[in-house]
Each structure stands twice: as C-alpha cells, then as structure tokens.
C-alpha cells in the first residue's frame, strides 16, 4: 500500500469535509417546501383568528399533517415524493442533548416574546400577526438555522475531517 503524501492526505480530508457539507446543504430540501410550510402556518393562524370554531377542530389535522410530513421526509419513498434526494444521518452527526434543546431555543424565544407582546398590547387579530411572524421565521430563517445546526453538530461530533 502506498502512503499518501501530506498534500494528498490534506486534499482527501478536504474532499471528505466537502462531501459532508454537500449533504447538509441538500438536506435542507427545496426552498418551495420551506415556503409552503411557512404559508401553511400563517394560514392556520388566520383561520384560528377569523374562524375560532373551525380553528379548534383544525388543530389535530394540522398536527397530523406536520407529523406525517416529518415522518415521510425520513423515508426513501416519502422523500422522493416530496423532492428530497438525501436524508442526513443521525449516526454520522450525533446530536447531543444540548444541541437538541438548542434547536428549540429560537422558536421558543420568538413564541414567548410574541405571545407576551400580544397579551400586553391586546392587539386585535393578534393571531394573524403571530402567524405572519412565525411563517416568516420558517421561510427565511428555518433553512439557515438548520444548516448552521448541521454544521455545528458535525464539529461537535469530531467530524472536522
């Protein structure tokens, strides 16, 4: 077996890093999917505000669709149907408990601050503003946050190869 030169070894390590990063980027899915999720969240909040009676029975179907989508994206057939060509491995990017919790921090922080503001200001049609805020978060910050998190997980797991 021929031992690679230090330059060849460095190039190979760079290729490994690039491969992992490529998967992390692709795992974000299509932009359209994020936009659809943001719009769905906004639409749900609009329905809650304008038709509270409908909103109360819409909660469970909405949650079931969210769960179904997240499950489908992990499967090969579901992923193919939703346009996802790759799924990030949890084995190669082991997520520590603190990173699992960290994933929720921005969502929780925005949710709490938004809810407090709405309660304090007694804004009419508050759920619509709340939905718009949450929808914008999902559309614009969701993919960036997920990519940042995937890269951080890789560093934490010692995958700096």
């Amino acid at each position, binding site marked *: *077996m021929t031992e690679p030169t230090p330059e060849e070894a460095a190039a190979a390590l760079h290729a490994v890093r690039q491969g992992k990063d490529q998967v992390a980027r692709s795992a974000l899915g299509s932009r359209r999917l994020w936009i659809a999720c943001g719009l769905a969240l906004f639409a749900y909040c609009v329905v809650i505000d304008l038709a509270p009676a409908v909103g109360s029975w819409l909660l469970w179907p909405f949650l079931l669709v969210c769960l179904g989508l997240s499950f489908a994206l992990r499967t090969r057939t579901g992923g193919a149907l939703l346009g996802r060509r790759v799924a990030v491995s949890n084995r190669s990017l082991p997520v520590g408990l603190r990173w699992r919790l960290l994933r929720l921090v921005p969502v929780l922080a925005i949710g709490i601050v938004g809810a407090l503001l709405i309660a304090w200001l007694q804004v009419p049609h508050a759920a619509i503003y709340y939905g718009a805020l949450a929808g914008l978060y999902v559309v614009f910050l969701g993919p960036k946050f997920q990519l940042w998190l995937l890269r951080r997980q890789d560093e934490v797991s010692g995958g700096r190869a």
Partner: protein
Amino acid sequence: MVAELDQLLLDPTRLAIVSLLTAAEWAEFGFVRDSVGLSDSALSKQVTTLSKNEYVEVRKGYVNKRPRTWLNLTGPGRSALSAHIAALQAIAEKAKADGASHSRG
C-alpha cells in the same frame, strides 16, 4: 498509522462517494452521481465495487412507477472510513509537526 489506511478508499472517487454517504441516512443514486460528477455507468461501477466489499448497500424501488435506486453506507463502510480519516489526519499532522520542528531547527 499506514496500516489503518483503507486500500479501497485510497481511490479519490470512491472516497468522495463514501464521504457523501457517511453524512447521509440514504441518498438517491442521482444525487450521488451529480455530487461526485460521474456518469451513471461510472458510478454504477464504483458502487458495485463498494457493495461487493460490503461498504455500501443498494436498494431499488419504484416511486410513481419510475425506478429509483438508493444508496447507504453500511456499518463496516462507516468504520473503514473513520479509520481511513484518522490515518489521513495522522499523516497531515505528522507533516505539520515535522515542518514546525524544521523551522525551529
């Protein structure tokens, strides 16, 4: 250190394929082909070599009546890549340490 280098992964194309798959639970054949920049037949040949050595598992199926192929890295493939990366890091770090000691001398 050299003993940990994997003969199969010394090939840059195979290393690129396995590196992609190590971060993935599964990946479509087309995704790997486009990412590595190979033709269907060239990737197929490399995948056959990797699957014969039990580094890569190939699954075939149909979505909307269209055939699909998915690839994923096996446990032995993952272990082989980890050992290979460790050996490459050792080579790179040794060269860095040698360079530092030469510059001091």
